[in-house]
């Protein structure tokens, strides 16, 4: 399956890009994060991140569909 990833803040720095499309066998958000964390050296454990799919918050067990836009959100610091 192909997934569209958007990266923000320090995850964008670590990945060296703001977005990418990846082909992956991962079927849920947790497996996809594990794969990308290994590839890009993300330091955050899943407990410290939130997940969004197609522009809405969701859970780590969310089953992914082809072409989903997936975002792993590091702790926010607005204000």
């Amino acid at each position, binding site marked *: 399956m192909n997934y569209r990833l958007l990266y923000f803040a320090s995850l964008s720095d670590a990945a060296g890009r703001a977005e990418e499309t990846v082909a992956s066998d991962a079927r849920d958000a947790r497996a996809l994060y594990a794969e990308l964390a290994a590839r890009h050296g993300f330091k955050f454990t899943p407990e410290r991140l939130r997940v*969004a799919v197609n522009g809405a918050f969701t859970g780590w067990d969310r089953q992914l569909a082809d072409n989903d836009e997936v975002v792993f959100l590091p702790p926010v610091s607005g204000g």
Partner: protein
Amino acid sequence: MDGFSLSDAPLDGARLRAALEAQGVGAVVCFEGRVRDHNDGRAVNGLSYQAYAVLAGAEGQKIVAEARQRYAVERIVCVHRTGDLALGEVAVWAGASAGHRAAAFDACRYVIDQVKARVPIWKREHYVDGDSEWLHPGSH
């Protein structure tokens, strides 16, 4: 104007305050969050804000809707900056108008606190020594 939005341009407090006008308003409370010249013991000379715009807008509107349910307010406005900001610039503006002051204070406080905690916006601090760093609360 009413509700939550992002802006890549400087915020105009007078214009935002005007958006709080409504029949029956007896109290207006506004909060400005500004770029400070220091944080965590380091001298800061600017900030950059990045947002996941689609989700930030949706979550911000949800917070405003929650505040409307909790407090007897007339209008709520909250705008958060994106992009590069200089010292003293307004990074986030929140305001609430109501018939009475308690609801206006409570709603303004609720909105700014929840926006800081939940809305997908990140700040990068630029330090006087040339270094810069994304802030992720809980990292230290």
